[in-house]
Each structure stands twice: as structure tokens, then as C-alpha cells.
């Protein structure tokens, strides 16, 4: 305890000394600050009388009367540029590119907006006109200028490709890709990777077997009406990769359809993609009927009279099965059957 008290005393002493120092400094500072600024006669007399000086913080003694700050001259705004425009000016020089509408540049008395109680707002201070996209930079003369400027980069259309038929003959494969334009800082779009390839199946050199196998491989990608095969590739991340993959698919399909595998010999009548009269029970029945009518005929070597009838019947029945039932095929079938039987 004693020790603590003593130390406290020492502390107090030091503090006191510091305080007096501080006070001394602050008083001198006051004199310095007040001395030159308020060197009036009153203060002198106070000092002479050994009185305390009065600190004139608010400076009441020398308060100036209030003066309004002089107004800044207003900026001179020139009248809209439209008033100075010549009537025969070149508009594409005034408005060369896409830009937001500006009323002082466009010399048209346009208005936009709906007002129930008066005329619609005019072009000055009209935010609606600034929002909508304008085509003031795409006037017909401006477009003509653009075309003239681009003309020197154009090349003539290649000779020999005048008609669509000729184009199709020289370029049998159509490749369709899509590029997307977004209002974003990136030009990438995942949908741009998709590649569609189209070609006529008839242009490929194929026999009956390879064509059948090709059709079985491409399934519903073949359109029967136009004989067109459409291959869409989208599994690779890039357009080029999908393009190459589509060509690989075409090559693989073509060569695979020309391959004849051992197991393809096991194809049964139910697997046939078309109706073959010679493989069907219809043939044996016709032979039976012919034999019943005229037992003397040789079924391998039919006489001319029977041969035409049987061929006619075969053709009608094949058409009926392969082309489907309609008025013509049914009528043909009926006629052929009547001819054969009666």
C-alpha cells in the first residue's frame, strides 16, 4: 500500500508540472493569436489597467455587414443546331452512325408519348424518344453509300453455278450452322456448336443391299418424300469438331453399309424391307391355281398367255404391298386377279 501511495504522489507531481506547462503554452498561444488580429485600443486599455483580456472569438468588434456573393453569370446556351442547318445538307454526315436521339440534331418535329389532356410531349426533354431504337443512320442514301463502299470487295458469282440444280450437282452436301448475336460482352453461345448436314441419298453410289443397310442405320434421319438424309451433330463442344464428326459419320455410314457381314444371311422374310413376291406364299398359290385350271402347263416355263397374266398379277400385288393401299393399286389388283382367274 505504502509503495503504491508513493508512486501515486510521484505521478501527481509529474501531471501538475505538465499541466502548468500546457497552460503556459496555451496562454502564450492565445496572446499570439489575439495580439495581431485584435490590436484595438480597447484591448490596450485593458492591458494597461492590468485587467484580463477578453477573448473576442466571435469578432463582434469588427463584424462586416452581410454582402451577397455576386451571381455567377449563367452559361449562354446556343439555340438548337437544327435552326442553322441547310436544307440541302448531307444527312449521313450529320448522323453517320447509330446514336441515341438528340432533339437539337434531328430537324424533325417529332413527338412521342400519350397525353390525355393535351398534345403529346415534343422532342425536347423527351426520354421516350431516347429509349426507342432509331434508324436515322440507315436512310436510303446512307445505305447506298455503304453498298458503294463495299462493292470493291465483292467478287463475281462463280461461273457454272447459275442455277440451283447446278449448285446442288457440284455441292451435294448442305452444312447448316448458326451464329448468334447477343447484347453481351461475349461472342460465345453454346448453341452455335450444333452442325446440321443434309444430302440426297440418291447421290451416293449404292446397290440394293447397301441402300437397305444405310436406311436401317440412319433410321428416321432419312426423309422418304425428298430422299434427304439429315445428320445433326451436337455432342462436341466446338463447331469445327462437330463439323468433322458429321463428315466422319457420313464416311462411316457409307462404308459400313457396303460391308456384308456373315449374320446378314440370316435375314428372314419378316425382316424384309419390301414385299418380294417370289419369296411369299402368294407365288405357290398362283402356281396351284394355274395348275388347277390348266394341268398341262409347266410351272418353270409358262406359255406366253399365262406369263403375261401372272406377271401382271405379281406387279399389282407388289405395288399394293410396297406403295400402300389406294384407289389405283386396289383397282389394279382387282383387274389383275380377275384376269388371272377368269
Amino acid at each position, binding site marked *: 500500500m505504502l509503495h503504491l501511495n508513493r508512486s501515486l504522489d510521484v505521478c501527481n507531481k509529474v501531471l501538475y508540472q505538465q499541466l502548468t506547462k500546457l497552460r503556459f503554452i496555451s496562454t502564450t498561444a492565445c496572446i499570439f493569436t489575439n495580439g495581431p488580429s485584435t490590436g484595438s485600443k480597447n484591448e490596450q486599455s485593458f492591458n494597461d489597467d492590468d485587467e484580463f483580456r477578453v477573448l473576442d472569438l466571435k469578432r463582434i468588434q469588427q463584424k462586416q455587414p452581410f454582402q451577397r456573393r455576386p451571381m455567377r453569370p449563367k452559361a449562354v446556351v446556343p439555340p438548337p443546331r437544327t435552326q442553322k442547318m441547310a436544307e440541302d445538307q448531307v444527312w449521313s454526315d450529320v448522323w453517320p452512325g447509330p*446514336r441515341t436521339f438528340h432533339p437539337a440534331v434531328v430537324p424533325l418535329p417529332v413527338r412521342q*408519348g400519350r397525353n390525355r389532356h393535351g398534345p403529346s410531349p415534343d422532342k425536347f*426533354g423527351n*426520354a421516350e424518344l431516347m429509349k426507342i*431504337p432509331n434508324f436515322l443512320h440507315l436512310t436510303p442514301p446512307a445505305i447506298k453509300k455503304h453498298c458503294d463502299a463495299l462493292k470493291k470487295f465483292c467478287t463475281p458469282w462463280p461461273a457454272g453455278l447459275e442455277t440451283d440444280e447446278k449448285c446442288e450437282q457440284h455441292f451435294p452436301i448442305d452444312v447448316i450452322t448458326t451464329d448468334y448475336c447477343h*447484347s453481351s460482352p461475349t461472342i460465345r453461345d453454346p448453341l452455335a456448336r450444333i452442325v446440321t448436314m443434309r444430302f440426297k441419298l440418291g447421290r451416293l453410289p449404292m446397290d440394293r443391299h447397301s441402300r437397305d443397310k444405310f436406311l436401317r442405320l440412319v433410321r428416321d434421319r432419312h426423309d422418304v418424300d425428298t430422299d434427304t438424309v439429315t445428320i445433326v451433330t451436337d455432342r462436341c463442344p466446338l463447331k469445327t469438331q462437330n463439323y468433322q464428326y458429321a463428315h466422319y459419320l457420313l464416311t462411316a455410314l457409307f462404308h459400313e453399309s457396303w460391308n456384308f457381314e456373315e449374320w446378314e444371311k440370316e435375314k428372314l422374310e419378316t425382316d424384309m424391307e419390301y414385299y418380294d413376291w417370289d419369296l411369299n406364299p402368294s407365288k405357290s398359290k398362283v402356281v396351284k391355281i394355274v395348275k388347277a385350271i390348266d394341268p398341262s402347263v409347266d410351272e418353270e416355263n409358262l406359255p406366253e398367255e399365262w406369263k403375261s397374266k401372272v406377271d401382271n398379277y405379281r406387279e399389282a400385288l407388289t405395288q399394293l404391298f410396297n406403295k400402300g393401299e389406294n384407289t389405283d393399286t386396289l383397282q389394279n389388283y382387282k383387274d389383275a386377279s380377275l384376269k388371272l382367274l377368269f
Partner: protein
Amino acid sequence: MQSASLLQRGLHTTSVVHRIQAGRYKRTPRREKPLTYEMAWPPQAIGHFKSWNSWNTTNLVGGLRASETAIEDEFVRRFMTGTWHNLFVSEIIIKRQHNMIRIAGILRRAISAQKMYFLIGYTEELLSYWLQCPIKLELQTVNDKKDVIFKYV
């Protein structure tokens, strides 16, 4: 049957509250509150009597970067209101074409032309640095706030 009665008991209904506040301004007794054309029409008039303040392709079918664009637009709006303090008398219009961003709006002529030119360059430079896109400020000035007032409510 039991579950049906339970459901019936669990469903409470109240009368519909048709209180819609957003984008509408209450009229004052003396009709002294000024409104711009944009403020004068309620939100359902967008696309009929007034049009959008942000123009971009994000909300079309297959549009990209919808959220990023919305955030960037909000950032641009806040930056513009702060930089051009107390100067805009219209909403800030942000139009995007490809990677170009056009910022349009109507200003009061409260500052000198020199300051305005400085602010245009400053805004374009900073925003193009942040958004990594070319920015164009296409502004229109009016003499006074009253020039854009459409009606009083």
C-alpha cells in the same frame, strides 16, 4: 373423407387486399407534386405508353447472361447517380448492342460545360474499365427541372 374435412378446416381465407404501391404516386391535396412522363404512367403501361429503361437481349428465348446484365445495369445506375450528383432529371437508360453499352439520360445544366465534358470522359473511362465493354454516354441537357415535368399530382 376425413382428409377432405381436415383440408377444409386447415384452409383459411381472407378478403383480397388490392393494395398495389410500386411505381405509383399518391396525389397531394393541392396537386403540387411534379411527375415526369416516366413517373406519370404505372408499370403496366410499359410497352404501351412508355418503354423500358434497359434494352438488351437477355430475356429473349435463348438469351444469355440475364443475371449478370441486371447486376451490371444496377451498378451503372448507382454509379451514374453518384457521379452526376443531383443532375439527372430522367431515369438512366441503358441500351446494349453487341458489346457496346449506351447510357442515355437527361441532365440539368447546373454545372459548366467543362465539368460536364470531364465527367463524360471520366464515366466512360471508368465504366469501360470495369465492365470491359465500350461505353458511350449520350446525354441531353435541359435548362431546368421543370422542362421535363409532365403533370402535377
